[in-house]
């Protein structure tokens, strides 16, 4: 303490320089670690999902390979676009859905997955519909009929999309999603109009929109995000909702009066995708091989009720656990896969079905009613 006044200006400067070096050095290490394939950055959605992934995927992977996994996010397409276009790419792997991937492929923001580097035995356990050139499906969400169990107790709930469209036999406020990069739920409109689930694609667009017109007066709220939908369902503001089934199951687990009807559901993958210009190809594919393993996926499914893409995962899950997952063999048979190719197909106007229908959705919303 007594020496304080005796500190020379130079020693203070030196100390300051030392301190700034100490502050900067982890950052310098991170950068070089990333360049040397010793670290990868995974952009995911945060919350309980990332926590669970850290526990069953990232930490064991770090331990097995010595490659650090940093998580960041949320992996929004607009952020990726800003990164790639500014040449300052800080993410390697994205955890995201097909609409976002299609938009990013169109904008040339992704690198393809090198399937030659993927473990073929593990890959064979994953339905081939999930082997997209730019995204490997790993965690399956689904749009299902999610309902309030106080309004519909003891199996009185709507069990088909035709029931949801039937405002006479099934009274109650409906809610459907609008925005959030979501295409309109035209498949359900077609199914409600009598199309069987194995003949949904190629979609009869006009027939589906005519059916959407019939749904419109029954919908109280076109919800903007899925958390909002679950909130509305659990407070009883909404009785029937077309939303992400697994999210309904999370709420059910927490005691909300909510349940999920899997029949007629639309399955869609969350995928691992690779950001364009990422230099960590080896580490990235090592990571992919680690996390598509059935046992690893089973562990994740025990923590968050999204379906594992690997059918091998069900060898590591109990029957009761499997029943609540949308990709269990039993539930899989009642649902259908979103046709990625159909939605991603470029139409006459140079845009994909996905882009066209999202725009048409907005137009339909503004102009009717």
């Amino acid at each position, binding site marked *: 303490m007594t020496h304080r006044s005796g500190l020379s200006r130079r020693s203070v400067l030196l100390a300051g320089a030392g301190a700034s070096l100490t502050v900067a050095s982890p950052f310098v290490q991170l950068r070089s670690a990333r360049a040397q394939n010793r670290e990868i950055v995974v952009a995911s959605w945060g919350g309980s999902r990332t926590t669970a992934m850290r526990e069953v995927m990232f930490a064991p992977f770090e331990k097995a390979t010595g490659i650090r996994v940093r998580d960041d996010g949320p992996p929004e397409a*607009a952020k990726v*676009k800003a990164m790639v276009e500014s040449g300052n790419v800080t993410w390697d792997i994205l955890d995201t859905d097909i609409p976002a991937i299609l938009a990013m492929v169109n904008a040339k923001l992704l690198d393809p997955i090198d399937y030659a580097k993927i473990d073929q035995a593990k890959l064979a356990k994953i339905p081939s519909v999930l082997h997209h050139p730019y995204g490997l499906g790993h965690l399956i969400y689904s749009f299902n009929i999610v309902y309030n169990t106080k309004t519909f107790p003891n199996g009185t709930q709507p069990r088909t999309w035709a029931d949801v469209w039937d405002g006479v036999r099934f009274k109650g406020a409906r809610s459907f999603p609008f925005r959030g990069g979501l295409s309109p739920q035209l498949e359900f409109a077609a199914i409600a109009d009598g199309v069987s689930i194995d003949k949904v694609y190629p979609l009869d667009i006009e027939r589906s929109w005519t059916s959407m017109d019939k749904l419109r007066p029954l919908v109280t709220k076109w919800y903007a995000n899925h958390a909002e939908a679950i909130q509305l369902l659990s407070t009883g503001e909404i009785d029937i909702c077309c939303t992400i089934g697994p999210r309904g199951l999370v709420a059910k687990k927490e005691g909300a009066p909510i349940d999920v009807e899997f029949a007629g559901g639309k399955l869609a993958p969350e995928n691992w995708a690779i950001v364009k210009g990422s230099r960590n190809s080896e580490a990235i594919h090592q990571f992919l091989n680690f996390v598509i393993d059935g046992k690893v996926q089973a562990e994740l499914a025990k923590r968050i009720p999204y379906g594992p893409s690997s059918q091998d995962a069900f060898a590591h899950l109990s029957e009761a656990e499997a029943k609540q997952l949308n990709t269990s063999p039993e539930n899989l048979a009642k649902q259908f896969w979103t046709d990625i190719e159909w939605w991603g197909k470029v139409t006459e106007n140079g845009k994909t079905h996905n882009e066209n229908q999202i725009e048409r959705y*907005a137009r339909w919303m503004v*102009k009717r009613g």
Partner: protein
Amino acid sequence: MTALAVSGAIAAPAGRAWRARPGLMVVGALIFCAIVYLGPMLSLIGWAFRDPQTGWSLTQLWRVVGDDAYQLAFLTTFRISATTTLVCIVIGYPYAYLMATSSPRLAALLVAAVMIPFWTSVLARSLAWMILLGRKGIINEWLVAAGVIERPVALLFNGIGVQIGMVHVLLPFMVLPIWAVLSRLDASLPRAARSLGASPARAFLHVTLPLSLPGLAAGATLVFMLAIGFYITPALLGGPNDLTIASLIEMEVRDLLDWPFGAMLSLVLLALVAAVFALGAIFAGARRIAGVEER
């Protein structure tokens, strides 16, 4: 990175020179403004008018102007904003008048009542309204219990919900400018009118109200301009008929990655807001709307 480099390069000579010419001190602020405001603005204009083939084009502008869905969305946005402004005037003026004319203690309480919600996040307030206004919300439950209504009325996911939510958020922007004018008003003027035989109503209509019009115009312009860009409240509390242009801009930019079109939508909105500002400026003076007091 560029920002740092530029300000660093400027800072060295400016550091020696500012003693001689204090005006140079604003250079840093100007550079900051140029980088933070002007730069993005120019890039927005670039996005909206650039064309990969022909260099510059009006394609995006025609897409906005020629599409009746977007025209409708602009109309909806203006309808919601205009209604909000009117409701804010109807509630805000008497409130500001009360603030300006009551005892200091009551006035302080009234200011606090307006300002405290003002400091809470818009999202939190919108969500709170969802709980209050819902079919099974507190307001409907009370009304039903009190026998006022038989079954819950729709207060949410329609124009009513949007109006309640937006007026709640924007009311301070109406109250404060009116209060500022009224509290500075020379109290002897309405008193003089009274002493000359005018009724209280007449004194108000012919003396107080005209003198407070600049504050009213400032408040109305502020509320209207802010309402036009509102996004969260209509999205959460509104129904399909309350789809505003801000939601569509977000969809283009975030989901469809059509940045040129999103940029053009933003520019058209900006132009419309600028037009409103110009109108307000004619009535109230631009300085007061911008929050700069004139004496």
